[in-house]
């Protein structure tokens, strides 16, 4: 595929202009499986066809974790890609390593400057440092609640729960046991493997807590509101409405399809997957509220890496600008379920037609109003790991919520004190 693209582009470049073509490397993670990879490649091919003086090699680099590791590795080896889609939360790390450009430095025209302001503010929280834009939202998501309408109807419920209390109460009604007392259907499923902090932020945000302050140098893990959120999460398993122990993220949609759980929390990036595979009628709702609605944003931004020639960086900038325009962004959003990052995209005709046909797609957009930035600090991988370990310790009952979070706060302070 890639080599075909390159060959085609090379042939066109020869035919069109004798000028040297710019070669770009573009790393992307596909968090939603193979079909999405094809969409990226199609979009890239479209751009290359229209711009014969640019070759783009789109490299599938694996999961988000893999992609950032690969990009860092390559950059340290002196051959960074010119552009890459990487988790928005890795921005501080990339900045600290001095690996990325601010987009403002290349936005010379008024049009460019307007473009930088065209995205939802919720997404820009994770994309700016000191007023400069370092990331362009692209593969962005937010967690939502999926529910099995048939299972709810069976329990006499006809809408999604709207508050924490409601969710727990309903989950209890939805938990089914067989004659020997074994659970056959859980009420709700909030996966906790790998990166539990993200979905957990759905609870902290709706409880009015802010996990990180002071530009990524101070965490508030031991805030009583955070402790309360963790106690609520733990109580779901303790009170028998959610499976005990660490719940696998990857197996969650399957468990939902299999009727193992009546409700699940997962990324909007799974919307298309669920739509295709759920053997029953399902609904999508915002995460339940405590003091307010609330959810984190998540997913990946485009970053512009240092190390390329001016010409290459400019070409990468132009490509990013092109792919985030409404037509392209709508195509990507429809193919995957990721949230289109700009209001203009939602106003495009393609998107309007899609939403008319499939209203659940709107839930994520409407939730953005209540969304906050995903947990992101300096030394992000290490700090989130500390936080994840604390969540795991509490979920598995090794430590109390307060104890685990106090320890995590102390450890995070220790790591971050150098950056204040």
């Amino acid at each position, binding site marked *: 595929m890639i080599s075909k693209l390159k060959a085609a582009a090379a042939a066109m470049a020869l035919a069109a202009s004798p000028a040297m073509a710019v070669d770009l490397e573009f790393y992307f993670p596909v968090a939603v499986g193979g079909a999405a990879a094809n969409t990226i490649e199609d979009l890239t091919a479209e751009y290359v066809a229209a711009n014969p003086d640019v070759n783009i090699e789109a490299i599938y680099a694996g999961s988000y*974790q893999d992609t950032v*590791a690969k990009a*860092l*590795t390559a950059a340290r080896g002196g051959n960074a890609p010119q552009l890459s889609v990487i988790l928005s939360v890795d921005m501080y790390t990339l900045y*600290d*390593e*001095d690996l990325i450009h601010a987009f403002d430095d290349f936005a010379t025209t008024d049009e460019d400057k307007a473009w930088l302001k065209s995205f939802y503010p919720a997404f820009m929280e994770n994309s700016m440092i000191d007023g400069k834009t370092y990331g362009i939202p692209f593969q962005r998501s937010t967690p939502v609640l999926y529910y099995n309408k048939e299972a709810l109807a069976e329990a006499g419920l006809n809408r999604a729960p709207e508050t924490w209390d409601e969710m727990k109460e309903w989950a209890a009604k939805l938990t089914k046991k067989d004659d*020997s*007392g*074994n*659970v056959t259907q859980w009420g709700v499923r909030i996966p*906790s*493997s*790998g990166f539990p902090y993200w979905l957990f932020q759905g609870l902290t945000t709706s409880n009015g807590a802010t996990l990180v302050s002071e530009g990524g140098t101070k965490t508030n893990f031991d805030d009583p509101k955070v402790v309360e959120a963790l106690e609520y999460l733990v109580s779901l398993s303790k009170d028998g409405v959610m*499976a*005990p*122990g*660490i*719940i*696998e993220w990857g*197996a969650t949609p*399957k*468990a939902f399809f*299999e009727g*193992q759980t009546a409700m699940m929390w997962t990324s909007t990036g799974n919307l298309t997957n669920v739509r295709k595979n759920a053997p029953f009628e399902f609904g999508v709702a915002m995460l339940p509220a405590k003091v307010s609605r609330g959810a984190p944003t998540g997913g990946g931004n485009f970053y512009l890496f240092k190390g390329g020639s001016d010409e290459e960086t400019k070409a990468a900038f132009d490509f990013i600008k092109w792919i985030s325009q409404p037509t392209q962004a709508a195509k990507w959003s429809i193919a995957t379920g990721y949230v289109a990052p700009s209001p203009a995209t939602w106003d495009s005709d393609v998107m309007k037609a899609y939403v008319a046909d499939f209203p659940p797609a709107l839930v994520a957009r409407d939730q953005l109003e209540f969304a906050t930035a995903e947990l992101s600090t300096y*030394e992000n*991988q*290490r700090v989130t*790991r500390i936080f*994840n*370990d*604390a969540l*795991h*310790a509490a*979920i*598995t009952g*090794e430590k109390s919520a307060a104890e685990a979070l106090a320890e995590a706060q102390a450890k995070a302070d220790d790591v971050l004190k150098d950056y204040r």
Partner: protein
Amino acid sequence: MVPPRPPIKERPMQRHWIHAWLLLTPAFVFLLAFTHIPALTTLWQSFRTTPRGRRPSRWAGLENYQELISDPIFWKVLGNNIWFAIGTIPTSILIALVMALWVSERLPGRGFVRMAYFTPTVLPMIAVANIWLFFYTPGFGLFDQITGFFGFGQSNVLGSPKTALVGVMVVTIWKEAGFFMIFYLAALQTIPPSLIEAARIEGAGPWTIFRRVTFPLLMPTTLFIGVNAVVNAFRMIDHIFVLTGGGPDNASSLLLYYIYETAFRFWDTSYAASLTVVLLALLALLALGQFFFLDRKVHYK
């Protein structure tokens, strides 16, 4: 094996020395470059800080080691690794021995049985772990399908800190036992049947024969396998990536996995170096133990 005999080429002295050194050069360039020198630079790096952004590396003395001593995760993964070794090594050696004894007998379908035991060894650990991850899945994995059939509830082996490491150990035993069986099979073939026959004529039962004749003769093999197994217990972490990612709360993380995370996820290479020094020290202890307490012939033959 054959004892070393006096080498043939005694003269002319100087010239054949140079021959020998030349023959050794290519191998030693690589050995030194990727084993011995890195082992030494690891030690050196463990006394320095990690360079970050615009802050260059500086001499840190014992800072990294102080951090290590006060790092609960380090002690946890070290403990895990020791439990992992204790849990997997004797079990897989015992199973391997039983397998070898069974397969070396006349047995209906011996070919199939031997294949069944040995096949897991051929598979990549990463593939094995993917297969097992599916079995462990709560609710609809193979385990829960089987236990559910007998009326038991769901299990969450990998999602509970009490069982996650055990879950990882089971996979390791499944993969390694067949490998060790091969060594026992080879050793069993070298035992002269006349010995067993003689014991039988003297009226010894199968258990006595095993205890008095077979097992003592297998002792060198057992030691060889043991050393191999210990090295593997500290080296093999592929399955951790797939099964648990070291979780929950580091309950199934092993030393080398922690080194990987520290170096390639947190980019703290100096701290990773001091962790590596601990690992090297453990292996050096093993080597010394082998040297002083065990018969050298056992290993070099």
